[in-house]
C-alpha cells in the first residue's frame, strides 16, 4: 500500500478530534459530557498496530497519567498518581473578512483574519468566468500568498500569519491580492484549525466573496452598504457546532449573492468588512493528583486529591468493598461540603487553596475498603474521568499489597494493549450493554447486539472454515514439493503464469510527475523485453485522489497522472507486441468517495459505480459505512469497500472484466489484500480469468527485543494462509524473503537464509510457485523509502531472487541504473537454465558471511563476502556472472 499524500488527509483522516460539549446545546437536555484520560501508552509498538489500537480511542478525549513510582518509596504513602486531564475550554473570537481596494481600481485585497490563537489555514479557491457548478479552481499563482500549498487542482491552503494588532492582541490573518482583470468571479474559502482539524464554514457552506457586479437592488444585504461600512456582526452566538439553528435564514446571508448576471469585469467592486463570531473548544491540560497515606495508628487510609482545575470542582465518589467495582457509600462521617447523591454516591466540593489555583480535598477511609472510585464534575455538562472509566484508586492495608496493585496496573495495561485488537466488538457489546442497563429499549438493543454479533461470528466461522477445509492442510515442505513437482510446469495458472515469468515493476513513486508515463514507458518496452522480462506491472490506472493512483475514485475513469486511457491502451498493445504480459494494479480494498452523506461524511460514490454507504465497511468509524464489518484489516485513509456485499462484488468483477477487454490487461497486481478476505479475491480472479495475479499482503515480520526472529514461519504462514484463502489462484509478494535478506545482508547473518529445515526461509521455501519475490518496490524504496533494501547490496538480493524459485520481480529504479548489465546477466542465466517458480533449491552453505545454494543442479550461486566454490562432481561448474559479494555458476 502506498502512503497517502498528506493533502488527502484533509478529507479523510482528521482523526485527532475534540469533543465539543456545545454540540448538544440545542438538544433539549444536554447529557453530561465525560472527558477521558488515558494512561500513557507503554510503548509505541509497531506503528501500524498501535495506530489501529488508538483509532477507536480517538473518539474520546485523552489524557495521560504518569505513575509516580518514586512516591511509593516514601514510608507512609501507599499510593500516589498524577492523572493529567484535558479540559475543554470554550474560547470566543471572531473571524474578520475585509475587502479593500489596493493601489488602483483593479487591484484589490481580501483579508481574512481570526482573533483566536492557533494554526489557522485558509482553504480557498476561486471561480472563473464561465465556471458552472460549485467546483473550485485554483487561483493564478500571483494571487497565492507566500507559504501557500496547492491542494490537488482546485484549492489552495494559505496559512494565517500572526500579526500584531489592534489593542495589542495577537491576530491572525492572511491577505490575498488580486486583480479584477483576471476573470475571477468569486473567492471561496473555509477556515481550518490545523490543531484540531476543525473546519469553519459559513452556514454549512463555503464562505463566498463575489468579486463581480453587486446588484444593489436584489435585496442582498452584503452589497447594500457602501464603502467600508463596519458590519454589525452576526446575530447571536455562533459556534463551531454542527447542529445549528437555522433561524433568520436569508437575511444576512451574504453568500447567496452570487451574481446571476453575466460577469462584468471592472464593475465597481466595493470594499467591506465583516465580523463573524467564532467559538472554539480547546483543550487545556490540567491534572489531578491522588495520594493515599496510611495512618500508622488507626490503619485508616487518608486519601488526598489535589487538582489545578479552575472553578468549583466536585468529586463524585464512592468506595468499593470487595474486588468488584461496585460503588458503595462509605461509613459516615463524610468530609465537609459533601452531599449524598441519590444514595449512590457522594459529592464533595474541593476546597480552593488560599491564593492558589489549586483545589484539594482529603478523605478519610476506613479499613477494609478495597478502592476509592471517583469522577470529577466541573459543571452539569462536564465530567472528567479516566479513559472512559471512573478513577479507581486501590486501597490496601499494607504496602506489599500496594505493590501488587501497581503491578497489576501495568499488567492490565499490557493486557489491554495486546487484546485491544480483538476487543472492538466486545467494546461495542459493552456499550450496548450500558445502553441496555440505562434504557427502556433494552430488549431491542439486546436483539440488535445479538444480531450483529451473530453476523460477526458467522463471518469468522466462514473464514476459519475456508482455511481449515483448504486442500493443502499445512505447509510442510514435503507435501508442497511433491504436489508441485508432479504438476506439469508448463500449465498456465493465474497463481503462477507460465512458471517462468520474470516481472518488471514498471514505475516508481515519482512516475506520475511527468504526466506522460505511459508514453515514456512505451519507448522502453523493447528494451525491457530484450532484458528478458515477461511481465510488466503498471501503476494503478484509475482516477485517483492521490497522484500515484492508490486512492482511486471513479474506477471507470482511466485518465490518470500517468496518462490518458488511449495512451494506456497503446502502451499495453506495445508490450504485447514485444511479448510482455501486462499486470494492472487493481486497488480493490478502498475507494474515495465523490460526495458526502447528510452528516458530511465522504462515503457516497459517484461515477458509473455510484455506490452508497452500504458499500463501505461498518467498522471504520471515520466513514460511517453501512456495510458489514471488514473481512480484513482496515486502511484508514479512505472508505474501505465491503466486499461481502453482492452488488459490490458484481460491480468489481464487471470492472475487472472490462479492464481485461477494454485495456487488454493480462493480469492483476492486487493492492492491500490484507484488507479483505482472500476468498473474495478468488471470486474476482475466477471472474476475470487473468493470466497471472499477485497480491500485496504486507505485514510486519516477527521481532523479539528489536531483533528479527530467525524463524519467520508465522509471518510466511500468514501470507500462505492468504494464498490459500484464494485457493492458490494468486501469488503473493514474498515479504518474508525481503525481510530476511535485509537482516542477512545488513548484519552479516547469512545463516538466516536457511530455515530450520534447510530450506529458504521465506514464502519461497514453503510455496515457491506462489511466491513472488522482490527486493524493492515503490513503497519500500523509491522516494518513499518505507523499508529500503540495504544500500549497495541490491545486487546480492537480486542474485538470490533471480536464481531461486518463485517469480522474481525487478524494480524499475534498479533496471534503469548502473545495475542494468548485471541484472541482465542474472536474468539471462535464469532464462538459459530454465529456472522456474518451482525449481529445487539445495542450500549448500548458510553461515555468518556466506550463503550458497545449488538450484535444480544447474545453477550454483553464493552471496556474501565469505568463500564458496561449487564442488565439481557430476557437473562441471563454470562462472556465469559475478559482482560485489556474489557469484553465479552454471553447470556445463
Amino acid at each position: 500500500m502506498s502512503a497517502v499524500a498528506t493533502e488527502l488527509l484533509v478529507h479523510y483522516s482528521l482523526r485527532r478530534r475534540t469533543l465539543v460539549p456545545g454540540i448538544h446545546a440545542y438538544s433539549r437536555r444536554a447529557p453530561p459530557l465525560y472527558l477521558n484520560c488515558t494512561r500513557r501508552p507503554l510503548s509505541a509498538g509497531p506503528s501500524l498496530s498501535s495506530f489501529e489500537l488508538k483509532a477507536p480511542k480517538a473518539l474520546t478525549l485523552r489524557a495521560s497519567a504518569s505513575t509516580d513510582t518514586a512516591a511509593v518509596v516514601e514510608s507512609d504513602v501507599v499510593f500516589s498518581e498524577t492523572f493529567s486531564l484535558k479540559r475543554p475550554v470554550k474560547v470566543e473570537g471572531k473571524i474578520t473578512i475585509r475587502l479593500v481596494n489596493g493601489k488602483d481600481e483593479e487591484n484589490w485585497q481580501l483579508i481574512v483574519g481570526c482573533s483566536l490563537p492557533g494554526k489557522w489555514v485558509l482553504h480557498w479557491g476561486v471561480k472563473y468566468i464561465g465556471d458552472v457548478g460549485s467546483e473550485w479552481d485554483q487561483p493564478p499563482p500571483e494571487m497565492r500568498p507566500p507559504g501557500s500549498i496547492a491542494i490537488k487542482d482546485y484549492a489552495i491552503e494559505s496559512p494565517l500569519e500572526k500579526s500584531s494588532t489592534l489593542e495589542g492582541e495577537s491576530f491572525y490573518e492572511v491577505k490575498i491580492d488580486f486583480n479584477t482583470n483576471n476573470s475571477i468571479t468569486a473567492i471561496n474559502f473555509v477556515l481550518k484549525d490545523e490543531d484540531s482539524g476543525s473546519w469553519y464554514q459559513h452556514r454549512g457552506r463555503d464562505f463566498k466573496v463575489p468579486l463581480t457586479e453587486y446588484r444593489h437592488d436584489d435585496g442582498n444585504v452584503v452589497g447594500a452598504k457602501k464603502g467600508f461600512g463596519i458590519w454589525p456582526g452576526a446575530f447571536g452566538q455562533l459556534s463551531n457546532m454542527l447542529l445549528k439553528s437555522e433561524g433568520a435564514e436569508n437575511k444576512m446571508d451574504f453568500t447567496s449573492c452570487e451574481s446571476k448576471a453575466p460577469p462584468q469585469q471592472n464593475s465597481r467592486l466595493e470594499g467591506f468588512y465583516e465580523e463573524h463570531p467564532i467559538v472554539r473548544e480547546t483543550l487545556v491540560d490540567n491534572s489531578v493528583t491522588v495520594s493515599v497515606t496510611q495512618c500508622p495508628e488507626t490503619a485508616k487510609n487518608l486519601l488526598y486529591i489535589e487538582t489545578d482545575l479552575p472553578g468549583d470542582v466536585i468529586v463524585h465518589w464512592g468506595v468499593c468493598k470487595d474486588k468488584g467495582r461496585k460503588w458503595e457509600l462509605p461509613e459516615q462521617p463524610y468530609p465537609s461540603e459533601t452531599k449524598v447523591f441519590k444514595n449512590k454516591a457522594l459529592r464533595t466540593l474541593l476546597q480552593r487553596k488560599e491564593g492558589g489555583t489549586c483545589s484539594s480535598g482529603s478523605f478519610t477511609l476506613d479499613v477494609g475498603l478495597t478502592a476509592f472510585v471517583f469522577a470529577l464534575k466541573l459543571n452539569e455538562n462536564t465530567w472528567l474521568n479516566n479513559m472512559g472509566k471512573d478513577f479507581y484508586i486501590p486501597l490496601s492495608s499494607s504496602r506489599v499489597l500496594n505493590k501488587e496493585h501497581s503491578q497489576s496496573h501495568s499488567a492490565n495495561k499490557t493486557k489491554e494493549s495486546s487484546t485491544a485488537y480483538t476487543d472492538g466488538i466486545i467494546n461495542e457489546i459493552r456499550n450496548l450493554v450500558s445502553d441496555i442497563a440505562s434504557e427502556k429499549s433494552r430488549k431491542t438493543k439486546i436483539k440488535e447486539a445479538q444480531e450483529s454479533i451473530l453476523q460477526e461470528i458467522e463471518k469468522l466461522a466462514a473464514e476459519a472454515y475456508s482455511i481449515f477445509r483448504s486442500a493443502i492442510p499445512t505447509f510442510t515442505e514435503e507435501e508442497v514439493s511433491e504436489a508441485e513437482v508432479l504438476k506439469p510446469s508448463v500449465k498456465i495458472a493465474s497463481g503462477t503464469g507460465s512458471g517462468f515469468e520474470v516481472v518488471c515493476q514498471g514505475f516508481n513513486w515519482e512516475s506520475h510527475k511527468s504526466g506522460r508515463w505511459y508514453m515514456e514507458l512505451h519507448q522502453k518496452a523493447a528494451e525491457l523485453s530484450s532484458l528478458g522480462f515477461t511481465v510488466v506491472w503498471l501503476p494503478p490506472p484509475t482516477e485517483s485522489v492521490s497522484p500515484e493512483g492508490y486512492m482511486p475514485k471513479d474506477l471507470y475513469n482511466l485518465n490518470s497522472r500517468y496518462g490518458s486511457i488511449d495512451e494506456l491502451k497503446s502502451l499495453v498493445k506495445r508490450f504485447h507486441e514485444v511479448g510482455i504480459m501486462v499486470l494492472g494494479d487493481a486497488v480493490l480494498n478502498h475507494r474515495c468517495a465523490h460526495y458526502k452523506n447528510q452528516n458530511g461524511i465522504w462515503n457516497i460514490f459517484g461515477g458509473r459505480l455510484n455506490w452508497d454507504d452500504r458499500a463501505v465497511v461498518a467498522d471504520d468509524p471515520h466513514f460511517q459505512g453501512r456495510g458489514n464489518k471488514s473481512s480484513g484489516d482496515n486502511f484508514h485513509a479512505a472508505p474501505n469497500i465491503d466486499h461481502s456485499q453482492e452488488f459490490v462484488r458484481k460491480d468489481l468483477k464487471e470492472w475487472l472484466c472490462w479492464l481485461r477487454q477494454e485495456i487488454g490487461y493480462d493480469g492483476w497486481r492486487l493492492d492491500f489484500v490484507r484488507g479483505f478476505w482472500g476468498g473474495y479475491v478468488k471470486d474476482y480472479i475466477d471472474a476475470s480469468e487473468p493470466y497471472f495475479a499477485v497480491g500485496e499482503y504486507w505485514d510486519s515480520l516477527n521481532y523479539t527485543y528489536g531483533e528479527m526472529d530467525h524463524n519467520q514461519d508465522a509471518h510466511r504462514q500468514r501470507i500462505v494462509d492468504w494464498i490459500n484463502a484464494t485457493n492458490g489462484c494468486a501469488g503473493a509478494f514474498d515479504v518474508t524473503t525481503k525481510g530476511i535478506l535485509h537482516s542477512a545482508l545488513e548484519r552479516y547473518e547469512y545463516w538466516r537464509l536457511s530455515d530450520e529445515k534447510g530450506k529458504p526461509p521465506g514464502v519461497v521455501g514453503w510455496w515457491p510457485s506462489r511466491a513472488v519475490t522482490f527486493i524493492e518496490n515503490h513503497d519500500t524504496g523509491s522516494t518513499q523509502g518505507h523499508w529500503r533494501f540495504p544500500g549497495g547490496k541490491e545486487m546480492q538480493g537480486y542474485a538470490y531472487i533471480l536464481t531461486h524459485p518463485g517469480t522474481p520481480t525487478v524494480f524499475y529504479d534498479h533496471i534503469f541504473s548502473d545495475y542494468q548489465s548485471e541484472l541482465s546477466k542474472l536474468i539471462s542465466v535464469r532464462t538459459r537454465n530454465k529456472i522456474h517458480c518451482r525449481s529445487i533449491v539445495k542450500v549448500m552453505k548458510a553461515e555468518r558471511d556466506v550463503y550458497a545454494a545449488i538450484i535444480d543442479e544447474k545453477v550454483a550461486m553464493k552471496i556474501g563476502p565469505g568463500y564458496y566454490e561449487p564442488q565439481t562432481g557430476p557437473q562441471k561448474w563454470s562462472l556465469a556472472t559475478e559482482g560485489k559479494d556474489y557469484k553465479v555458476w552454471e553447470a556445463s
Partner: protein
Amino acid sequence: MEVSVIGSSQVNNLGRVDLRYREVGLCSFSKNLNFAKISSPKYSGLFVGQSSISWSSKYLFPLIVKASATAQTEAAVTSEKASGTRRSEVDNNLMLYVGLPLDAVSSTNTINHARAIAAGLKALKLLGVDGVELPIWWGIAEKEARGQYNWAGYLSVAEMVQKMGLKLHVSLCFHACKESRVPLPEWVSQIGESQPDIYFTDRSGQRYKDCLSLSVDDLPIFDGKTPIQVYKEFCENFKTSFSSFMGSTITGISIGLGPDGELRYPSYHKPAKSQGAGEFQCYDKNMLSHLKQHAEASGNPLWGLSGPHDAPSSKELATSSGFLKEHGGSWESQYGDFFLSWYAGQLISHGDRLLSLASSTFSDVPIAVSGKVPLMHSWYQTRSHPAELMAGIYNTVNRDGYEGIIEVFSRNSCKAILPGIDLADEDQPKETRSSPESLLEQIIFSCRKYGIEISGQNARISGSPSGFQQIKKSLTGENAVDLFTYQRMGASFFSPEHFPSFTAFVRDLRQPQLHSDDLAVEKVDSAESLPEKNVQMQAA
C-alpha cells in the same frame, strides 16, 4: 449569521459521542450498582482494567437460572445442605469448552492454520464459549530426545487463547494419534523397535504401537528411567514452562491414561467393522510374566500360563465364544473372575499411578486435574459386557466395574472426563446391544457417589440437531456435568452444515428458560436470588 464547523471526522464522531454520553452519563453510576448485581462474582474481573463494570460476553445470551420445576421442588430438601457448601461452580453455570484441532501445533512446533484458529477463537469468544481444550502431544513437545522439551508452538497457542480472554484446558497426551499423524516420540519408538514388548500385544501377537503398555510403567526402559518417571518429568516441565498461565488461562489439565488418553486397554481399534468386541491385550512379555506370578501367588499356577484360551478374536461375534457367551460362559467361572480381576486390577493400578503422579505434580497450582474414563458402550445390554471386559473394566451384570475406577479418581482428587455424552441409544446399531445412555448413567452414578466432578465430551462432531439435543439432555438433566468440551474445531466444525446448529446449541444452552420478561437484569433483587437457585441446581 453564523459560522459552523464541518470536519469530516468531527461529524463522524458525533454518533459515537452520543453513545458515550449515554453510556457514561446515564449509567455510569447506576450501572455500578445495578449492573453489578447481575454479574456473579465469578465473572467480575474478566475485563479487569477495561471497564468499571464486569461484562462477560455471556450476557449476550443472558445466562439465567434454570428455575425448573425440579429445582424448585428439591429446594427445600437441598437448601440446608447447600448453604453449607456454597460452591461457586454450579451446574447452571456450566462451563462450555471447544477442543482445538488435534494438529493445532505441527511437528515442527509451529501453529497450523494460525489464522483460522485465531478467527475460530474469536468466534467462540463472541459466542460465549468459556474456553478451549488443547491437546499437547508427547511426540511433539518431547520429540527430539528425552528431556528435551519444546513448548514453543503450544505456548503460542496458549498466548492466543489468553489474548482472546478464553480459558484453556490442556490434555497431556502420552499416546500417538493416527488421525492427526502424531507419532510417539522417535526416541520412544526406537526403543520399541528393539523391545517390542513395551507395547500392548494381543493373543495373535499384534502390537498396538500408539502407546506404551501399562506393564512397563515401572520398568526402567528409558536408559534407566521408567515411563512413569518420564511422564512425571514431562508434567513438571510443562508446569514450569506454562507457569505464567497456570490458574489464570489454564484452568485444568487432563493426563493421558492410555489409548486416546482413556483409561483402558487398546482392545478395540477404531474403526471396527465387525461384530467383535475387541481382544484382551495381555500378551506382551511383561504382562504375561506378571499374570504368571499372580496366578502362582493365588495358588493356581496353571491359570497364569496365558490369557483365556476361549476368548473371541476381534473378528468373531463377541458373545459367540466360550469365554464371553451370555449363559455359562467362563467369565462367570472362578477362573474367569480370577483373570478378569487381575486384568482390570492392572488397569486400575495404572490409573492410580498416573493420576497420583499428575495430582501431586499439579498440587501447587490452582488447576483441576482430570482423566478420561472410556465409554465402552457396545454390548452393554448383555450379561457379560464383552467390550468393557476386554477394555479392562470388570463390569458385568453381576459386578459394578466403575466403582473401583472412580474410587481411584476420587482418591487422587481428579475430575472424570466422560466422552460420548452425545450418543443416543437409538442411534446405535441394534446388533451390538449397545447402550451408551445407560452406561453413562452408571458411570455418573459412581461419580456422584464419590463426589467427583464430571466433564462431558461428545464422541464426534454432531451432524444433526438431534445430536445436540442428546448433548443438551445430558447437560441439563439430573446427571448434569460441570464442564462440557465440544470436540472439536476444524473444517467440519465450521462448515455451513454444522456451525449454525452449534451456534443454536450454544445459544440454547445459554438462553433463559424463563420468559425474557423475567430477566434478572430488570429486577434489582434478582442478584440475591441467583446464588440460591444456583445452589439448588448444584446440589441436585
